[in-house]
């Protein structure tokens, strides 16, 4: 692959689709700088090369990563995901987070959690958790607390409906400013939503028809532009009335 020599040329790769083997950054002209590499990038001697197909993103001043959309999830530290309890052992719950390996949620990883008030989760409970440790050799470790030790909305989700999408759609839904589809739906309907970066989305509302409408609208909005999403929501609202 031809390598782009200068730093200014690497800016041309940002926000563009890259494939494995592309060299996106040359380090010869950046002796005293630190660069943080995220998912999908690797240092190859004097150049940074791409390992995953996707879009190259930059976060000023020095964070680079490759964004791609899959149906599988690769656990990363500090990700918030939706997990389903599979089993409970003595010190941790086994939770499925759509990763290659089951996640381990320590029994004490709850706000004010002691050996006396261990929560009882039946098999199939939906949990909103945070990934604490992620390694490709070990089971990822999860927690229902944030860094300071507060509950912060983590924990079991009651009622509602859960459906699975790709990781790309989940990231789009979590973007700020808020995603157009969520905004448009929120203008006319009231609903509660929890989005996991592993592609799982939980929706809850007062009536089942609202839940069904919101979930189908989100599933169909993955490849629509902002304007198309708004038009789709308008059409759905008209059909309701």
């Amino acid at each position, binding site marked *: 692959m031809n390598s782009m020599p200068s730093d200014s040329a690497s800016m041309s790769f940002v926000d563009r689709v890259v494939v494995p083997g592309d060299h996106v950054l040359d380090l010869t002209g950046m002796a005293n700088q630190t660069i943080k590499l995220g998912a999908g990038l690797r240092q190859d001697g004097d150049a940074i090369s791409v390992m995953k197909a996707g879009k190259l993103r930059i976060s000023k001043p020095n964070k680079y990563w490759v964004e791609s959309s899959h149906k599988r999830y690769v656990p990363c530290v500090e990700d918030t995901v939706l997990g*389903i309890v*599979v089993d409970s052992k003595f010190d941790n719950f*086994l939770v*499925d987070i759509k990763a290659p*390996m*089951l996640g*381990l949620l320590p029994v004490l990883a709850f706000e004010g959690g002691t050996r006396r008030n261990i929560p009882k989760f*039946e098999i*199939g*409970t*939906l949990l909103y958790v945070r990934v604490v440790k992620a390694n490709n*050799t*070990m*089971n990822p470790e999860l927690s229902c607390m944030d860094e300071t030790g507060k509950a912060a909305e983590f924990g079991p*989700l*009651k*009622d*509602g*409906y*859960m459906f699975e999408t790709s990781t790309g759609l989940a990231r789009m839904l979590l973007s700020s400013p808020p995603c157009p589809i969520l905004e448009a739906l929120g203008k006319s309907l009231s609903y509660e939503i929890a989005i996991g970066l592993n592609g799982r989305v*939980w929706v809850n509302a007062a009536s*089942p*028809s609202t*839940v*069904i*409408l919101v*979930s*189908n609208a989100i599933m169909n909005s993955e490849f629509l532009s902002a304007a198309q999403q708004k038009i789709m929501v308008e059409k759905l609202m008209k059909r309701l009335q």
Partner: protein
Amino acid sequence: MPIMEHKSMAWRMSVNERKFIETALASDLRVDGRRPFDYRRLNIKFGREDGCSEVQLGETHVMAYVTSELVQPYRDRPNEGILAIFTDFSPMADPSFEAGRPGESAIELGRVIDRGLRESRAVDMESLCVVAGKLVWSIQVDLHIIDNGGNLVDAANVAALAALLTFQRPECTVGGDNGQDIIIHDPKVVEPLPLVIHHLPISVTFAFYNKGDIMVIDPTHKEESVMGGKMTATINSNGDVCAIQKAGGEGVMPSVVMQCIRIASVKAADITSKLKNAVEVYNTERALRKVKRHPSKMAHQVSVADITLEDKQVKDLPRHQAKMACQPYIGSSQDDEPKVDTRTSTNADGNSSGTHADAFVGGPSKWDPYPLRVGTSQVLGTLTVVKEEQVVSDDHRAVECSLDHTTTSSSGTVSVSDAMQKSNTSKSLKDAVKCLLEFFLPVTMDFWMTSVATEYWHFAVVKVIVLCAIRCLCQWLPSKLMKAL
């Protein structure tokens, strides 16, 4: 040591989903927005070969493939063919499907479809018999599950029917030397035969919830995981019940079963019409593909010959006639009459000259594509006409034959030609040369015609010019040669 997942727990359903599906159904709502008795979108596609179909029912994807072979019949049914259904639950369709021996659901699916086709006598077995007791056709239907999105039975049933409707088996006859051999005709030579299918049994699947109170049609994968019981009713568009399958699950009241059958007959009519439309579209497309057209070589030969020769006929005839007139060696009284006749006839059209020649020779084909050539050679009488016939039929051997014919008369001709022979022996050399040239012309024309047909049309212009040149040469050269000789 990392904790790996259990294989059997590859797909999990959360408690929230389970409860929600049931509460939504209580208000007649389904998770994908359908009403309880709505089918998902049915998409039927066919492969390039006969008997290959692909059906998509929402997310469920099934392929069916029909093959036939000649086998010995079963002993208790010596004059009936054999129908076999084989199901393949591919592991790529669902994480719970395992490669290898078919599981319980695979066997059940195969059995339900088999019962619908065989016991309702949908496929005519007796027409598959070739020699009673010895050879019958065995039809095997292979069902491959590509993607499990729920309701595999219905999708597989439609796929099997679509494949059977478009399948064609080769025609075979009993004959041969001893009257016992079975000859299987090549499908390209003899049209293959479709199977005789009397009616179309369509299966409709219902899922029960809440102890049999709520039922839905065409459950999705998630709805199937939550359901209490399942029932499949196989009905044809006439309303005949071909099969009913309810294997385990919650008990339902007989009134519910009757209601399901009534709904199923309505749905079956709808699916039958969709299936028939798809098969019709495929059949017309297949018929169009098989239309045999005339080989392009023949077509071009006819048209180009007409174009070039008719043009030249008018132009060259006066010149040709003038030359004939001034060639005294040809003018024997015997030839005059036929010469005059043929000239007038060539003025009209080539066919009459051919028929006139037939009065003498009685050759096989009456139509001569090169009438002008016949006209010029009429001067020499029947001898050359006979050669013409041969040349028209077989170009390759004519080169050798022509010389022979000039010296020895053909057996077909009678005393007339003999007389001609005697008068012409003295001029045989000149005749030979003339005949050669006369022959050379059609050969080149044939050559050019084929090349026009097979190669690019714009070369035709060049070739027409060359043809004119050769024609002029043939007319002009003999006279020169004769003068020299």
